[in-house]
């Protein structure tokens, strides 16, 4: 059974290394500051005992006040999982660091989030629309689209 | 040359045209029916009894289709290609004896003529591939050219064995000389010739130029209507010609007990065609480099070996052992054993084609 790691527990570990990376945390998830996403992800991937080697899923969600990107991470080695969240308050030009350099699996998923929710991932090697065509206006999975 | 010759030729031109066209229709029906059986389905069964008229229905349908020429195609090449692809198959049949004496022209270089004319079909296919101005057809054309050039070598070499034994290039003489079918005396030669011919008439597993899953339809991707039908018929005409040539060279042509010779000839042609169908319905396709590797690394050495072996045997028989009898039975068994052993051995030693290319 994959154990879902407690967000508070992990955020404590993150906090030791990166004191102001964690925005808030509860049992289910850890919410990070956008700018520290990459280094925390690096930490989560490399630290023994955590070793999140498998990026399961990236979902972009629009909460109207802010845009949220949810990372579902899994460690195949330890068989546990973690939900990582990052928020963007700037609706016009939301930007987050890309994690493609850590997990190749983020490649298409970040493009999808960019396409449908409109979050730009800086550092992505090939960030362009994927499901919709070039020149499409707007990002349909935002709640205020249509 | 006198008047009788003209009548003879006229009759046989009609006979061959009739034979080719009726065989094509029979083959199309057989192919669809047999492959249907291989694939656990019924095949055509709506038009006429057991679907025998399906080919005619298809023909009428194709005739009524619009003839489309791509805007940027080379019009003349595009137009001529199907004709160039179709005609050689008919020409080959001119030297195939249906029974003793029933032949359009018993050329004394018959088999050479078959090889020369048989390879002409590729020009038509190349013209189609080039003239269509389509990338898929261009790839297909290049593939065909490479394929035919490569396979022509082992095919010709495998015929040499037959020629060495019979001492003649004439198709009629070759049949007369076969006390037993040469498939027994020349098992290796038969296999090489059969596989090489399969490649030359572009049937599976060597059907790279059509390769539906890769290059869609290959050279005839831009053809429609009657031109497409001509390609389609041409493919079967080539199959008919190839089956007839194999029958003549290795299956002792019209010879056979009880039944009339012509019937024997037809039965054997049908059997060879059925072998093509069997391969088509069971084998996946080779990759292009594997195809080349198969010709150059597998078929060619074996064909060369076969030439040497046959040459040695013919010499040995004529000089030393002619008193043993009138048929070289020991060589028959020797050749069968050698063919089996070599094929097993060779397949262990060599790898089909290359791997990844660094780019």
């Amino acid at each position, binding site marked *: 059974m994959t154990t879902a790691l407690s967000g508070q527990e992990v955020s404590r570990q993150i906090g030791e290394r990166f004191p102001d990376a964690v925005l808030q945390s509860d049992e289910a998830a850890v919410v990070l500051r956008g700018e520290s996403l990459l280094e925390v992800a690096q930490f989560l991937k490399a630290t023994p005992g955590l070793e999140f080697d498998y990026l399961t899923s990236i979902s972009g969600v629009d909460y109207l006040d802010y845009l949220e990107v*949810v990372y579902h991470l899994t460690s195949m080695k330890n068989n546990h999982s973690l939900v990582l969240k990052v928020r963007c308050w700037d609706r016009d030009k939301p930007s987050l660091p890309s994690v493609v350099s850590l997990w190749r699996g983020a490649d298409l998923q970040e493009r999808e989030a960019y396409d449908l929710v409109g979050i730009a991932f800086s550092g992505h090697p090939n960030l362009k629309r994927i499901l919709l065509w070039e020149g499409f206006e707007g990002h349909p999975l935002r709640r205020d689209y249509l | 040359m006198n008047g009788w010759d003209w009548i003879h030729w006229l009759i046989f031109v009609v006979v061959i045209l009739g034979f080719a066209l009726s065989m094509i229709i029979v083959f199309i029906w057989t192919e669809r029916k047999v492959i249907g059986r291989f694939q656990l389905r019924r095949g055509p069964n709506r038009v006429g009894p057991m679907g025998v008229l399906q080919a005619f229905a298809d023909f009428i349908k194709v005739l009524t289709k619009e003839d489309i020429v791509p805007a940027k195609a080379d019009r003349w090449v595009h137009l001529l290609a199907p004709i160039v692809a179709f005609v050689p198959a008919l020409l080959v049949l001119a030297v195939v004896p249906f029974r003793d004496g029933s032949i359009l022209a018993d050329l004394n270089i018959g088999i050479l003529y078959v090889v020369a004319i048989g390879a002409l079909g590729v020009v038509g296919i190349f013209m189609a591939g080039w003239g269509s101005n389509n990338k898929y057809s261009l790839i297909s054309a290049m593939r065909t050219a490479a394929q035919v050039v490569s396979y022509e070598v082992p095919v010709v070499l495998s015929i040499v064995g037959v020629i060495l034994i019979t001492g003649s290039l004439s198709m009629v003489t070759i049949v007369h000389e076969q006390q037993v079918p040469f498939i027994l005396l020349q098992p290796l030669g038969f296999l090489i010739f059969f596989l090489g011919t399969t490649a030359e008439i572009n049937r599976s*597993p060597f059907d790279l130029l059509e390769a539906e899953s890769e290059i869609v339809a290959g050279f005839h991707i831009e053809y429609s209507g009657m031109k497409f039908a001509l390609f389609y018929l041409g493919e079967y005409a080539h199959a008919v010609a190839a089956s007839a040539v194999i029958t003549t060279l290795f299956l002792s042509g019209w010879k056979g007990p009880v039944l009339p010779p012509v019937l024997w000839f037809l039965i054997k042609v049908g059997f060879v065609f059925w072998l093509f169908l069997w391969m088509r319905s069971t084998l996946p396709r080779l990759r292009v480099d594997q195809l080349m590797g198969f010709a150059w690394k597998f078929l060619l050495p074996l064909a060369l070996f076969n030439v040497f072996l046959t040459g040695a045997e013919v010499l040995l028989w004529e000089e030393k052992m002619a008193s043993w009898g009138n048929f070289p039975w020991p060589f028959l068994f020797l050749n069968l054993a050698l063919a089996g052993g070599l094929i097993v051995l060779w397949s262990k030693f060599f790898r089909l084609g290359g791997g990844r290319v660094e*780019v």
Partner: protein
Amino acid sequence: MMELKTEPVVINMGPQHPSTHGVFRMRVTFDGEVIVDMEPVFGYLHRGIEKLAEERTYTQVIPLTDRLDYVASMTNNHAYVLAVERLAGITVPERAEYLRVIMDEMMRISSHLLAVGFLLNDMGAFFTPLMYMFREREKLLDLFEMVCGQRLTYNYMRIGGLSHDIPPEFLPALNRFVQEMPHFIDEYDQLLAENEILLARTKGVGVLSRELAINASASGPVLRASGVSWDIRKADPYSVYDRFKFQVPIGTAGDIYDRYWVRIQEMRHSVRILEQAIKGLPSGEVMAKVPPLLRPPQGEAYAHIESPRGELGFYVVSDNSIAPYRLHIRAPTFINLTTLRDLVIGWKLADAVAVFGSIDIVLGEVDR
């Protein structure tokens, strides 16, 4: 001597191409027959299912999920209802769980049959293997039809159970299928596994290394063929999978052949699960008490299952209304395509088609 000028050719394979399994497009640059560059182009079948789901009640989304992976609709149903059940805290009756497992495994066999058949077809075996596979798939489709009246888009699972119980004639028919299926799998093995051309075309071609497979979030048979023993049914058992004995076949080389082999073996184990599930099938209700207009509490849930093509996940966010606030689908084949470029570069045109076939994508799921 004159230098001949050569240049690479760019070919658009797809969206209309016989072996792109729908409307996928590969923009391939060839140097002769060798692929020097490849760019996948998606989205020709994008219907905006995630957006459509936001305007439908939770139950109305189920038919939409059928249209994702239309070769294995039942597993899509399952993943979605699992996510919503997790969100709303609904317990499913045991009989329904067993039937869900039965449906999933039937779906897996049927989907793998198609995958293997079309892989062979892509490699140029003129429809014969496919027709053999279709023979068994047909029986499965008949069984599905018996259960829910549909052959492709089943719409059978509901939040809290199943739409209705199985008909009495279903179990005997399934039993018969389970009895004879191992024999047919052996038959496929005999027909295919040692075919020289098949081996030459698949062994060592399109190798996905273990590290890259994990790093690129591959899942399903593609991941397992690369030697990673990761199957959600084992790693994170859902439904009642923890009660069954079965193995997870893993490949060693990560090439096309291993992907083919893993699928064939998985079918065997699916048959074993089916056997056990039929034996253990309890009686009782198939539907929990669920309000007709479900309003799950505010929150979010992620549920994943092992669909025939990999880890199929549904991330559902609820704002306590009757429609999902956000539904995100983690489509396994979409993510498996991440490494497509790495697998085909340097190989020939024909290999690209075979690699693509071995990943076994369904465009309905890739483009959503």
